[in-house]
């Protein structure tokens, strides 16, 4: 096992990055590595696609944390690993049931038409609820490390901004703005919203007013938890890794993403370059191959993979230039096959290594 990227202070590992780079596989492998080092690990995905559970061969339909069978790997001193996929509606319902001051208030919210619509399939709610689930996992003293596999880059930024949006939506001023006590500057907006309601037929203003009012008595708790989530995400216990591959387009996305993270106050600790191709063998060894037809095919094969390696090397040079000062670059190997089993994930986990590159 190579040197571990974790230290004992890390309680949260945030895996971010563009789509299609193997973020889920890498997050799972990193979680597995920590578990094999003896930690009790929870790996959670907030990606709506069931990739994490698929990768670990667990029930993709379940919203409950599921135990990964580490005993199959026969590693002594292993901790435990659980994986779960966020179910926004289930989590939102749990939050309401747990924090509503009375049963009647919880029922009022759960029955609200707007709540029923937004707590299900509509985009964005998952971000709010991921924060709640994260805190729930974080408060479990049995869990030493939480690995968070986020959705692709743009949506991940939405996720990181969720605490602020939650505060914005549910702070006490919302009630004043929507219910009464309007400041002059908001009156025009409210008048236009009323017109908007009439045109669209949504009756949003009254719905939102009723929705926000039904949260009375819960604002303080939401605000405290959102502020706490923000503090955890930006605190020293959180290890932030951006996962990418050494491909030209991904690197542009990664550069833009790292810039956005910096503007959002999130500093990255490292970059994991996934699917790194192995070193190329020397081409001269092919000269002795016979018959010539086979030699030609092997030469073509070498040229094809050499072109891919060349592309990767050029991209890596760009990556080294763009990472923030102090951040490390780790490399995860391309196994040459898709990881199908826990053993494959363990192989990747054991191979993830610090390249020694750092700015």
């Amino acid at each position, binding site marked *: 096992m190579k040197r571990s990227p974790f230290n004992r202070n890390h309680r949260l590992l945030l895996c971010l990055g563009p*789509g299609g780079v193997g973020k889920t596989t890498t997050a799972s492998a990193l979680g597995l590595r920590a578990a094999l080092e003896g930690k009790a690990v929870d790996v959670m995905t907030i*990606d*709506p*696609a*069931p*990739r994490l559970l*698929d*990768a670990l061969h667990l029930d993709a339909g379940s919203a409950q944390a599921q135990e990964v069978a580490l005993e199959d790997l026969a590693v002594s001193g292993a901790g435990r690993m659980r994986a779960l996929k966020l179910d926004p509606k289930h989590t939102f319902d749990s939050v309401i049931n747990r924090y509503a001051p009375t049963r009647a208030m919880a029922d009022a919210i759960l029955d609200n038409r*707007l709540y029923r*619509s937004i707590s*299900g399939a*509509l*985009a*964005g709610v998952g971000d709010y609820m991921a924060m709640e689930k994260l805190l729930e996992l974080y408060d479990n003293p049995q869990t030493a490390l939480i690995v968070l596999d986020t*959705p*692709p*880059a*743009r*949506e991940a930024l939405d996720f990181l901004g969720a605490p602020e949006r939650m505060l*914005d*939506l549910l702070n006490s*001023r919302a009630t004043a*703005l*929507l219910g009464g006590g309007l400041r002059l500057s*908001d009156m*025009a*907006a409210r008048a*236009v*919203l009323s*017109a*908007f309601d009439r*045109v*669209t*037929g*949504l009756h*949003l203003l009254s719905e*939102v007013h009723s*929705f*926000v009012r039904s949260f009375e008595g819960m604002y303080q708790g939401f605000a405290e938890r959102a502020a706490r989530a923000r503090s955890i995400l930006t605190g020293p216990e959180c290890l932030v890794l951006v996962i990418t591959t050494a491909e030209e*387009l991904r690197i542009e*996305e990664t550069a833009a993403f790292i810039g956005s993270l910096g503007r959002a106050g999130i500093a990255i600790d490292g970059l994991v370059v996934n699917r790194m191709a192995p070193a190329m*063998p020397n081409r001269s*060894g*092919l000269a*002795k*191959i016979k018959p010539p037809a*086979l030699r030609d*095919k*092997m030469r073509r*094969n*070498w040229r*094809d*993979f050499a*072109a891919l390696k*060349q*592309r990767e090397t*050029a991209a890596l040079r760009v990556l080294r230039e763009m990472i923030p000062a102090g951040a490390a670059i780790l490399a995860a190997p391309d196994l*040459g096959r*898709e990881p*199908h089993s826990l053993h494959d994930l363990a192989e990747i986990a054991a191979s993830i290594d610090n390249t020694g590159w750092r700015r």
Partner: protein
Amino acid sequence: MRLAESRATIVADLDQRGSAARLLGVGTAQETPVEAAERLQVHSLSARRELERFIQRIVPVRMISNRMLGSRTFAYVTAALPGLDAFLLLSRLSAMAGEAARDDRYVVVDGLSTGASLELLSVAAGVRRLAGAGTLSRLATELEGFISDPNRFGVAIVAAPQELALKEALEAASTLREQLNINRIIAILNGVAAPLFTPAEAEQAMAADLNHAALVKRRLELDAAATRIRRELEAAGLRVIDLPMLFSASVGKSELARLSRSMRDKVAA
């Protein structure tokens, strides 16, 4: 590029990173259509911009609509209804498809990730349930009709020849068919390496040079994976179009042209 060989085509790029625009060599994505090649334009769209356009349409006085968009009250409302902007984006795509049909053009949408795209396509039903009656309800019903009409709308699920991508593709196809009533679906298998060695040659090659054996094995595995994934996609009733793996040191417009040429006998323009 393939479709633009015969008809004007517009690529609607929903990805704000503008990958399509960059690959097509027109730099960063633009809010107005930009010419990328003969008969081919790229147009960047975003949900937020569609929300702004919608507000400006129903509140034509720019000063008031800007005030509204900038107000905290409005931010609360849109935050409480996070699907509204996505809904308006879907409406815009529908309008573009209508204009394209009238002018005998194609619209190709470079969508978001699978999960985000399914959310986008689900938003019409969500808004219809929420809106009850009124303009949005009517629009939502029209949009559901649009995405389920095989003459106006279809989905190409793009997958790499990998198991996880396959599972995601099959689940997406099932959701599209069963929950969204979308039945014009094809699969595009991207990154298919052309077979190079026969089994006998591969065995001979791996025995002849151990240093190169790993590369030969890699080639065989790429080929085997593509064959297996294609078979599974076809078994799920999907027509599969292969795109070749680009063994090249860079990927740009000329490589896109190669991919386009590879589709000549598979995609009728």
